[in-house]
């Protein structure tokens, strides 16, 4: 589906309000729909934004975007279950963009090119907050609250911070230096972490309040392994639950748990335990899992790697009895299963096959079936569920005890890092509201829509192979805990980021916002005052559409900006429209219909409520009857009124997508005393009419360059083709007129390839100079 304009100052991404001089009413607006990847991220990381920035080689800016919603980029870049990739529209074309590995690259890039550590954030508020547990959820909440000026102390029972990240995830997946670097970053910001401090005792919660903490976030994780409840359990030595096993390995030098090991379960802990046992020297490692590989909750990559390393996975097998001799485990009887009807989780329920028992020999059994919180303090009024997890409101994370909030695995049972981070955000928001006396309803509107609604036209996209992750040879992995995956190099990261289809409103890189901060009165583009082109909030559409431009005062949080609003919605030029219906057939929002004009003829009519200003109709109209909201002769003339004497006047008409993620500084290398560059961006390259080129020449341009996205990446399907066709016409016209056709150039540039975009402009300017400028 075509998407709204890129590189616009998309001020309506956040909540805010607008007021208009001379008008009483204020207009509130909410956040816009995110792209599928961003929508899928439980923590609300703006995935598309940082992928866009990485495609432009801006790794630092990308990391800043990630850190806004995820304080642990290097960790999540390694171990996140990446729901963003599952939602990626590229799944339909080939394979999803390797978002997780891109995030890892951005984080690793900073480690490899260290700058100044972040400045400590000033504590601006009186209230103290206690966070129990320095895992991902606790650290996220602490980070959010410190950034809001609170004094936050994190209490951690284990000797090092990280929670399950350090206790449960082996170092070959998550090197400790990465973990400690990210925790250092957070402590540098001002988060206090007291490790080795267990919160225990019947009155622990009351004690914390007595110590002056005004809000408490219980993010204690789920570190206690659940029982198998089968025969033989508890009778023999050699049974060790996964978390305890991994904890042991991670905190102290370890021996192999046994020579022949059976791990029970299908989650990441099971796979981690199995791969860890192999590394410690176990000669045979089995995983026993009740269902099939399809249902296995562990990451597919992890299962692949485990199998490569030699782990034997028994699918459709359930433990029946642990057997042993002389008090020591000697094996386990398993029963074969088959899949029956789906259960309440939607997965098909495993059903035992009668008389199918078989024995697997082993001297160690590691149950990894699930964990629950280990609660060693009095709950006071906090409730416990029947699964022994803490009960908290799923939106606000509030427990029944005022001022006490809970989240992460302690509430959900064992879940993912990214879900824990999401809870941390919600808890921090609620604590802010609790401490400032505001109601506790979820302060952030739910980030996730039932399903990502943004679809794009995928038929035209060609397959580009997803970058593979370079990894250590299998033979070299055993006997050590060195990181298995090596990470991308810079070129691979950029190429992989450029696979992004950039669904959704604009590239969201926010480069324009940083520009705007420098010039709060008016957005300045390319050194010249430019117009704000914005998607208009629903309740403002009719107002903005009824006037060509509106001055308004914009308020987002504490930020106040004067803006000029211009509608991007196209207008149907009733005098030009011939009622052919082309626009109706291409509009994916159903915003256009043919209405009777008079007699048996029809003209097209736009419904401003439905129109999303994507511009596809503008490109598709064969007659030029769809006029973009801001493009008319006056607009063009104002743009062309910038010819210099004694210089090469280069006019570039470009698709806005070509220039997205483009920073004005990057054009400086082209703009010299000799080259007067005038960059004129249209919604889609297809909107560049032959008349624009002629008018530019008539206005004194030495050369005119047209750029559009190539056929592959055109967001509107027809843009590149249209501009190429008009290019041929216009060249033959100027030839007859006696003008050198070389003065007109055309280039198809993949969407967002700002490097090629700038190079193309520079090359064209050079060719004009070689031809004598005029």
């Amino acid at each position: 589906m075509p998407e709204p304009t890129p590189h616009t100052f998309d001020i309506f991404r956040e909540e805010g309000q607008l007021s208009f001089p001379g008008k009483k009413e204020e207009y509130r607006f909410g956040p816009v729909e995110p792209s599928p990847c961003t929508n899928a991220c439980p923590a609300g990381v703006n995935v598309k934004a940082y992928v866009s920035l990485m495609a432009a080689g801006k790794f630092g800016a990308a990391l800043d975007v990630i850190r806004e919603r995820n304080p642990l980029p290097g960790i999540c870049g390694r171990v996140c279950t990446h729901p963003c990739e599952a939602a990626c529209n590229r799944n339909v074309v080939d394979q999803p963009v390797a978002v997780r590995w891109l995030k890892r690259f951005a984080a690793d890039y900073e480690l490899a090119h260290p700058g100044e550590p972040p400045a400590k954030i000033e504590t601006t508020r009186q209230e103290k907050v206690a966070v129990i547990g320095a895992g991902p959820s606790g650290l996220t909440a602490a980070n959010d609250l410190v950034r809001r000026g609170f004094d936050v102390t994190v209490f951690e029972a284990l000797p090092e911070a990280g929670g399950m990240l350090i206790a449960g995830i082996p170092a070959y997946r998550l090197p400790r230096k990465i973990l400690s670097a990210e925790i250092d970053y957070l402590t540098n910001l001002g988060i206090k972490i007291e490790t080795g401090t267990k919160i225990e005792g019947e009155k622990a919660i009351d004690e914390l309040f007595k110590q002056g903490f005004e809000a408490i976030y219980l993010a204690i994780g789920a570190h206690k392994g659940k029982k198998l409840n089968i025969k033989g359990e508890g009778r023999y030595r050699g049974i060790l639950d996964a978390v305890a096993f991994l904890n042991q390995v991670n905190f102290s030098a370890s021996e192999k748990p046994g020579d022949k090991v059976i791990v029970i379960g299908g989650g990441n802990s099971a796979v981690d335990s199995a791969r860890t046992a192999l590394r410690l020297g176990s000669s045979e490692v089995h995983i026993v899992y009740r269902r099939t590989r399809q249902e296995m909750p562990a990451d597919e990559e992890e299962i692949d790697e485990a199998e490569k390393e030699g782990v034997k996975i028994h699918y459709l097998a359930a433990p029946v009895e642990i057997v042993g001799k002389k008090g020591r485990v000697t094996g386990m009887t398993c029963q074969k299963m088959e899949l029956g009807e789906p259960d309440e989780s939607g997965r098909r329920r495993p059903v035992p096959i009668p008389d199918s028992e078989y024995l697997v020999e082993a001297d160690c059994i590691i149950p990894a079936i699930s964990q629950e919180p280990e609660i060693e303090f009095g709950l006071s009024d906090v409730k416990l569920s029947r699964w022994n997890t803490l009960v908290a409101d799923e939106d606000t994370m509030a427990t029944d005890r005022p001022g006490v909030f809970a989240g992460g695995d302690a509430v959900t049972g064992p879940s993912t890092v990214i879900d824990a981070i999401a809870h941390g955000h919600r808890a921090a928001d609620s604590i802010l509201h609790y401490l400032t006396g505001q109601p506790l309803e979820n302060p952030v509107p739910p980030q996730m829509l039932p399903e990502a609604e943004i679809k794009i036209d995928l038929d035209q996209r060609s397959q580009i192979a997803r970058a593979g992750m370079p990894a250590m040879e299998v033979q070299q992995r055993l006997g050590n805990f060195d990181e298995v995956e090596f990470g991308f190099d810079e070129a691979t990261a950029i190429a992989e980021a450029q696979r992004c289809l950039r669904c959704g409103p604009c590239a969201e890189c926010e480069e324009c916002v940083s520009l705007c901060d420098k010039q709060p009165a008016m957005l300045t583009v390319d050194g010249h005052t430019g117009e704000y082109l914005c998607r208009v909030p629903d309740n403002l559409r009719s107002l903005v559409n009824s006037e060509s431009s509106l001055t308004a005062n914009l308020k987002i949080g504490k930020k106040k900006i004067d803006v000029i609003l211009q509608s991007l919605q196209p207008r149907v030029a009733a005098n030009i429209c011939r009622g052919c219906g082309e626009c109706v057939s291409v509009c994916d929002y159903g915003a256009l219909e043919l209405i009777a004009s008079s007699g048996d003829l029809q003209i097209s009519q736009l419904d401003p409520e439905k129109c999303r200003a994507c511009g596809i109709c503008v490109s598709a109209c064969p007659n030029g009857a769809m006029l973009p909201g801001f493009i008319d002769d006056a607009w063009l003339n104002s743009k062309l009124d910038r010819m210099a004497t004694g210089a090469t006047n280069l006019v570039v008409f470009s698709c806005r997508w070509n220039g997205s993620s483009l920073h004005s500084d990057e054009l400086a290398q082209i703009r010299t005393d000799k080259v007067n560059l005038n960059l004129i961006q249209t919604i889609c390259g297809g909107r560049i009419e032959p008349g624009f080129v002629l008018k530019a020449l008539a206005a004194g341009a030495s050369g005119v360059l047209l750029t559009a996205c190539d056929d592959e990446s055109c967001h509107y399907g027809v843009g590149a083709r249209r501009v190429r066709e008009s290019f041929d016409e216009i060249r033959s016209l100027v030839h007859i007129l006696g003008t050198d056709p070389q003065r007109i150039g055309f280039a198809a540039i993949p969407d967002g390839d700002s490097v090629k975009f700038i190079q193309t402009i520079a090359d064209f300017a050079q060719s004009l100079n070689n031809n004598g400028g005029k």
Partner: protein
Amino acid sequence: MHEELYAAVQQTNALACLECGKCTSVCPVSRFSQEYSPRLMLNQAVKQDFDTLFADYDLWSCLTCQRCDQVCPSAISYIELTQTLRNNTDSSRFKGQCSHSGVLETLQKMMTTRDLRQNRLDWVGNELDISTDTGEILYFVGCAPYFDSFFTNLELSTLDAAISSIKILNHLGIKPVLLPQERCCGHDLYWNGDMDNFKMLAEHNLEMIAKTGCKTILFSCAECQSAFQNLYVENGFKVPWKLQHLSQFLAEQVESGKLELAPVAKPVTFQDPCRLGRHLSEYDAPRQVLKSNGGDNLVEMKQHGKGALCCGVSAWMNCDGTTRKIQNERLDQAYATGAETMAVACPKCHIHLQCTQQHAGDDGPKIEIRDIATITLERIG
């Protein structure tokens, strides 16, 4: 400014308006667009309500086809009044919308440059015998080379008319002069109210033509001819040559026996261009050519001659829904004759009617639209 406009009101005889409404009743635009009324526009002009007129889109709707002037009992020149008003709008006012993003209008303006080095005769092949400096007869090509490069999506070649015309002239032993740096005649800019650029184009053309020593200028384009014959003269330029539409020249040649033509093979109907017909009062010559040596095959449309229906657009302005209706009506009239060919005598009629017929899709009736010169060339033995 209003004084100048009021002078135009007086000069065009508008004060004599009887408000009889004949103009509106014959106007092709009014017929399909209920809002538009020449009588109301005149009424506002007489009341000197110029601000209302300038704010009105309809100031740009008039096709200047002259149908109204023809029936006016008070001999008012409504189209001249329209032109004067258009010429007096300032840039902040609504202007007529030039189709195709103003390509043709911009080309016309760019041709006012004095030292232009056009490649506008690339299409002249070796089979055509022409001169580019001096000669008795000058053939004024018009903008066909540009049209053919731009309207690549239309199944037509307006240069065919030029090539056919030259072949016919060569057949008659005439080696016509063609101007390598010919400019747009300025017709469109004049009717768009752009007098300055119109005059510059006229000057360039007249200066170049004077150097050729020609005595006669032939036109395939009725608009070019009307520009020379009417507009140049009315605006004080000297035009000391015999000016003829190719069809007028051909009619003379047939009449004098110098040109013998086979009968028209298939039934044909004729689209009178407004400029050749009502503007220059020539209705007979093209028909004489088409009828020569057996005229049974010429069939007339319901509206023809003085009452002919315009092709729907003038000066590339405001090609719109009303335009389409006028053109469809005209094509329907042509289909109703049963003719297989529609002869045209102006490239604009050719382009506009071809465009509408082509966009109607493949299902409806079709008529072959051809310039009278190409039809005539085929009839030479």
